[in-house]
C-alpha cells in the first residue's frame, strides 16, 4: 500500500533541522523526553485549519518560517530590555526575569524568594535530574497537543517553584518574560509550580517585547495545586506587534483546591493561550477568566479544556473579547464532566464586543457531560456597543468616544474584576485604559 505523507511546510522542515542541531546539547538529559515529544510533533506537524482544535488559528499558515531558538542575551542587552519593561512593573514581587526565554539571574530576585517557597532554575534542575521534573506535564490532554509537545522538545529554560505545605507568602512571584533583538527568534520556557497542602500562592506573569520582530515564544506553565491550596495567577500579554505567541497553562487540582487565573491580551499579531484544567480532587473551585483587546490585524485565541473528574467541582469561566478593525477573536471552550463528577457546577461564557463591521469572533463552547446530577451551562454573545447605553451616557454629557470607552472598559472589566491581588488588578485596568487611550 502506498504511503501518503503530507508535504512538510518550510517551517516544519525548519523545525526538524533546528531540533537536529539542538539535540546535541540535550543529549545528556534523561529527565524529559524531548525526542518523544518532537516525534509526536513531527507526526502532527504544525496544526492547520484541518485540525479541529486549530480550525480558527491556522499555525501552519501563520508560521511561514521557523525562527531559531534564542541565544542567552548579554547582560547589557538584558538590562536595557528589562529597563523599559512595564508589565506589573510597580508591584512588589519576587521577580524571575527571562530575557529571550533565558533566566537572567542578575535581574532576578533568587535571593529574595519568600520563605517557604523554593525556586530551582530549570537549567540546574535538568542538569541534576531534579525529582520534581517527574511532575511536569500534569494534565494528560495537554500532552496530546502539538504546541505543548514542541515546547517540551525545545525546552530551553524555566524554573521549578515549590510552595511548602501551609505557606502563604504575602508577596507574589513575578515571571517576567521580556524579548529583545532585531531578528526573529523562538523561545521555549517551562515553569512548574507545585503548591503543597493548604498553601496560598500568587503568581504574576507578563510577556512583552519589541514591535516589528517576528518573535515566536512558546511558553508553558504547569501547576499542581495541592489539597486545600489556593493558586492565584494573573497573566499579561503585551507582546510586540509581530510576535506569534503560543502558551499553555496546565492546571491540576487536588481535593478542595482553588484556582483563579486571569489573562489579559492586548499584544502579539497572533496569540493562542491554551488552558488545560484537570479537576482531580473533590470540591474544587476554579475561576478561569480571559480578556482580549484587539486592533486591526491581530488574532487572539483562548482555548480552554476543563476536565471534571471528581465530585462537586465549581467552575466559572468568563472570556471577554473586544475587537477593533479587522481583528479576529477565537474562543474554544470545552467542559467535560466525567461520570464520577457528580454535583459539578460549571458555567462558561464568552462575550464579544465588535467595534467595527470588519472584525470577527469565532466562539465554540462545548459541554460533554457523562454525569447525571450536574449544573452546567455555556453561552456566547457577540454584538456592537448598545446604542441605548451610549445615548444614556451621552445624554449625561460624555462625548461619544468617551462613552464608548467607558462601555468597553466596563465590558472587559467584568473579567478582570476577579483578580484578587489589588496591584495586579490595577495593572490590568491600567493596560485596558492605555489600550482605549491609544485608540482615541
Amino acid at each position, binding site marked *: 500500500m502506498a504511503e501518503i505523507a503530507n508535504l512538510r511546510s518550510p517551517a516544519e522542515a525548519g523545525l526538524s533541522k533546528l531540533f537536529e542541531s539542538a539535540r546535541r546539547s540535550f543529549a545528556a538529559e534523561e529527565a524529559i523526553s524531548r525526542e518523544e515529544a518532537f516525534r509526536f510533533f513531527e507526526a502532527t506537524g504544525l496544526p492547520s485549519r484541518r485540525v479541529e482544535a486549530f480550525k480558527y488559528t491556522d499555525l501552519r499558515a501563520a508560521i511561514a518560517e521557523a525562527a531559531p531558538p534564542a541565544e542567552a542575551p548579554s547582560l547589557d542587552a538584558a538590562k536595557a530590555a528589562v529597563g523599559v519593561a512595564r508589565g506589573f512593573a510597580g508591584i512588589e514581587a519576587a521577580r524571575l526575569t527571562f530575557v529571550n526565554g533565558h533566566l537572567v539571574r542578575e535581574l532576578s530576585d533568587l535571593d529574595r524568594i519568600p520563605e517557604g517557597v523554593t525556586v530551582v532554575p530549570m537549567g540546574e534542575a535538568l542538569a541534576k535530574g531534579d525529582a520534581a521534573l517527574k511532575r511536569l506535564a500534569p494534565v494528560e490532554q495537554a500532552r496530546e497537543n502539538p504546541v505543548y509537545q514542541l515546547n517540551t522538545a525545545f525546552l530551553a529554560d524555566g524554573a521549578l517553584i515549590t510552595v511548602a505545605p501551609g505557606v502563604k507568602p504575602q508577596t507574589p512571584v513575578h515571571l517576567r518574560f521580556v524579548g529583545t533583538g532585531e531578528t526573529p527568534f523562538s523561545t521555549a520556557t517551562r515553569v512548574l509550580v507545585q503548591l503543597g497542602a493548604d498553601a496560598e500562592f500568587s503568581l504574576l506573569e507578563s510577556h512583552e517585547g519589541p514591535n516589528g520582530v517576528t518573535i515566536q515564544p512558546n511558553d508553558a506553565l504547569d501547576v499542581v495545586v495541592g489539597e486545600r491550596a489556593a493558586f492565584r495567577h494573573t497573566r499579561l500579554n503585551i507582546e510586540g506587534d509581530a510576535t506569534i505567541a503560543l502558551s499553555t497553562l496546565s492546571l491540576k487540582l487536588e481535593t478542595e483546591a482553588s484556582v483563579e487565573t486571569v489573562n489579559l491580551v492586548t499584544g502579539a499579531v497572533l496569540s493562542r493561550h491554551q488552558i488545560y484544567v484537570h479537576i482531580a480532587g473533590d470540591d474544587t473551585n476554579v475561576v478561569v477568566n480571559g480578556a482580549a483587546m484587539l486592533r486591526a490585524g491581530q488574532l487572539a485565541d483562548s482555548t480552554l479544556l476543563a476536565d471534571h473528574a471528581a465530585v462537586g467541582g465549581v467552575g466559572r469561566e468568563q472570556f471577554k473579547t473586544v475587537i477593533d478593525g479587522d481583528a479576529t477573536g477565537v474562543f474554544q471552550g470545552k467542559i467535560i464532566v466525567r461520570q464520577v463528577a457528580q454535583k459539578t457546577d460549571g458555567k462558561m461564557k464568552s462575550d464579544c464586543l465588535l467595534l467595527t463591521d470588519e472584525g470577527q469572533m469565532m466562539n465554540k463552547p462545548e459541554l460533554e457531560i457523562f454525569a447525571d446530577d450536574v449544573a452546567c451551562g455555556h453561552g456566547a454573545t457577540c454584538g456592537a456597543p448598545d446604542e441605548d*447605553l451610549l*445615548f444614556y451616557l451621552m*445624554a449625561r*454629557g460624555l462625548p461619544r468616544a*468617551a462613552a464608548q470607552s467607558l*462601555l468597553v472598559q*466596563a465590558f472587559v472589566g467584568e473579567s478582570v*474584576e476577579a483578580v484578587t491581588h489589588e496591584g495586579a488588578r490595577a495593572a490590568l485596568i491600567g493596560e485596558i485604559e492605555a489600550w482605549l487611550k491609544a485608540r482615541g
Partner: protein
Amino acid sequence: MLEIKNLVVQIEDNRILNGLNLTVKDGEVAAIMGPNGSGKSTLSYVIAGKEDYEVLDGEILLDGHNLLEMEPDERAAAGVFLAFQYPLEIPGVGTMTFLKACLNAQRRARGEGEISTPDFIRAVNAAADRLEINKEMLKRALNVGFSGGEKKRMEILQMALLSPKFCVLDETDSGLDIDALRIVSEGVNALRAEGRSFLVITHYQRLLNHIVPDTVHVMSKGQIVKTGGKELALELEASGYAEYRTSEAA
C-alpha cells in the same frame, strides 16, 4: 428659555410629532399630559438628541441656540437634562465613576476646570442625603440591581449634581410608590430655581400634586392641543382623555 417651533418628527415613516409648538419660560415648570401614543416620550428624546428620530422640520431653541444641531453630549453641556422613564443599567460602570466622568465632561465642554475629589464627594453625599439614597448604592455599578424607585432617585441625584438649565422628566412617577413619589418630588422641588426650567411629562395628575406646575399642556397626536394652568390637570383627572381621543378620530 426653551422654544419649540413647528417640530415635525418621524420614526420609520411614522409621523409622531406634527408641527409641535411649545414655549417654556425661564424658571417655569411646565407639565405635559396626554394619552398613550400622543408623542410625549418622543418629544423628550428629541430634545435630548436620541438618534432614532428623524426631524423633518422645526427648531428647538435653548436660550436661542438650536439644539437640533448639537450632539446629545453637547446638549447636556448646554444644560439639557433628561430624566429617563426607564433608566438604564450599566454593568461594570461604578456609579461614582460614572457621576464624576459626566460632571467633568460637562465642565470641560464648558471650559471649566475639573471638580476636585473632595468637592465631588461632598456634592454627591449632599444630594444622596436629600434623596434618601443609601451610600452603599453609590458603590455599586450604575443602576444594576436597583429597584424602580431607586433608579428614579438616582436620576434626580444626577440632575442635582449636574445642575442643568432645562430638565425634562419623562414619566418620572411611573413605577414609584407613594413614599418614593414624595422623595423624588421633594428632590425636584429643591432644584426649582431662577434660571432653571422643567418639562414634566406624565399621564397622571398625582405627580403634579407634588411638583406643582405653572402651566399644563395637553398633547394629542403630536401637537399641543390645549394649554392652561395647574387646574387643567385636575380637569383631565376628572374627565379623562376621551375628548382628545375623539378629536383625534375626528
